[in-house]
């Protein structure tokens, strides 16, 4: 058993290639919010964003053995997301404003420039997006990326969802445990 939270990006990729589902889930934990936000900003339709991001993760799993990730996982995932978005823009029958905008861009940019956009620039943009996140979102990022708190705890910390009775009981137990300085015993059968 390993603490996947502590693995480096490189180690995670190796583990994933070796067939570790836990490595995939760790990647999910680290990148889901980032990818979701990136896509949502460019295609603000929740249901579809959900599917697009989910498909990337199942694709990663199905193709894990053939993955060639050279320039870092963030870049790889963002570029994959970008390509998926293009596919969505290309085929969607309702949200046509993206195609329209691309068409407009083709017609009006002429050959004005030959400067290439590098992946680095794309990543800089992603970083900038993160830094301009609303405070609550940023907190989710920090907490979930640093991996110190579970989702539930984050939700509680930010007052995002109502506490269930069960959670309250658990919290009560936790407090009790700390107060008594002992770890609660379980029943003997």
């Amino acid at each position, binding site marked *: 058993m390993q603490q996947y939270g502590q693995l480096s990006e490189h180690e995670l990729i190796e583990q994933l290639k070796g067939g570790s589902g836990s490595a*995939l889930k760790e990647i999910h934990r680290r990148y889901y919010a980032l990818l979701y936000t990136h896509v949502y900003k460019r295609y603000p339709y929740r249901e579809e964003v959900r599917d697009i991001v989910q498909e990337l993760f199942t694709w990663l799993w199905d193709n894990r053995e053939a993955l060639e990730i050279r320039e870092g996982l963030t870049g790889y995932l963002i570029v994959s997301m970008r390509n998926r978005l*293009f596919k969505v823009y290309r085929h969607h029958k309702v949200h046509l404003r*993206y195609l329209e905008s*691309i068409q407009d861009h083709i017609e009006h940019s002429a050959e004005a420039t030959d*400067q290439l956009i590098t992946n680095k620039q794309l990543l800089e943009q992603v970083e900038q997006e993160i830094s301009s996140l*609303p405070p609550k*979102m940023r907190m989710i990022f920090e907490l979930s990326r640093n991996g110190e708190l579970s989702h539930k705890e984050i939700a509680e910390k930010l007052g995002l969802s109502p506490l269930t009775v069960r959670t309250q009981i658990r919290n009560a137990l936790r407090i009790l445990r700390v107060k008594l300085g002992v*770890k609660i015993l379980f029943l003997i059968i």
Partner: protein
Amino acid sequence: MRFRQAKELIDKYLDGTANSQERSLLDRWYQDKSPKGIFPDPEELLQDEIRSLRKLDAYLSRPKRVLLWPRLVAAAVLLLLLLATYLISNRVKPANENQFLAHDVQPAKDAATLTLADGKKLVLKGGAPKLLAKQGQTRVSTTAAGELIYQQAADQSTRGQDFNTLATPRGGQFQLVLSDGTHVWLNAASSLRYPAAFSAQNRTVELTGEAYFEVAHDSARPFRIISKGQRVDVLGTHFNIQAYQDESFIKTTLVQGSVRVTRLLDGQAEQISPGQALLFEGSRFAVSNADLREALSWKEGYFRFKDEKLESVMKQISRWYNVDIELLGDVGTIALTGKISRNKNISQVLKMLEQTGLAHFELTERRVLVRH
């Protein structure tokens, strides 16, 4: 066709036939010109993230597809039967059923693989007494009590040469009587390598995993156990050694007699007395007073934990029930104290652990997910 150029450009871009100018045209659009909206709602994002992780989990543990018709039909029939059974039993039984029953796992059984000197492997399952093989002049057989036993003949010309290995899988345990009469209880996911007949000078065996030894007294031939960088020398005594590969430590607990534990790396040695344990972890080599009940509980048929980290508790469960464990977050650091019978099915063990309220457990096909 509307937006023909845009569509063509995307097609080229995605199938890799776009030239660098075309690529940069679309890249620039994506970077600077694509309509950018608002940030998602934090609560929705969090909900979606949790839901997505669950879906991913289900995806990872989905059964492999089999495309053979007869199997599909058989599976469909089985599914219907299961569904019917489920519906009926649901109607009959009260609602407070154990949530872990769907993927329940029975406790470990007597099961091991014996590898003979010539590399031949035999699967042992306990049961009826049987002569399995002859290794030189030594008879190898199973007894009615389900042990593996080595019996030496008078002619001992081949002593110390034929090495055998007894290995238990996860979810298996076995008992063994060596040619000198030493009795060994081998815990799950462990293996012991030993000569079918010991040489005249010493009795040396190699252990990985966990075993309890009752060494037959023979002051002329010291008994030695080599495991993960340490050697234990004994004359005749009762003790337990825990030396799993996936644990960072080796623990030698002495019940009776006396043993000397040597760190092979630098020859540092410690003698321990009954009731003491020697913990060898990293560079630490420390003697302490042992909780004998805890150290021997596995042999007596219990899991017994004293302020033990959940990570370590789950490792034992993993070995005993042959299940994979996944700990989410820092849940493995929770400490537990208690005692559970090892003869129960895993559903009952998890139910008890769940009742502590300290962690939550999900049991799927031979996998336990533990979270806060």
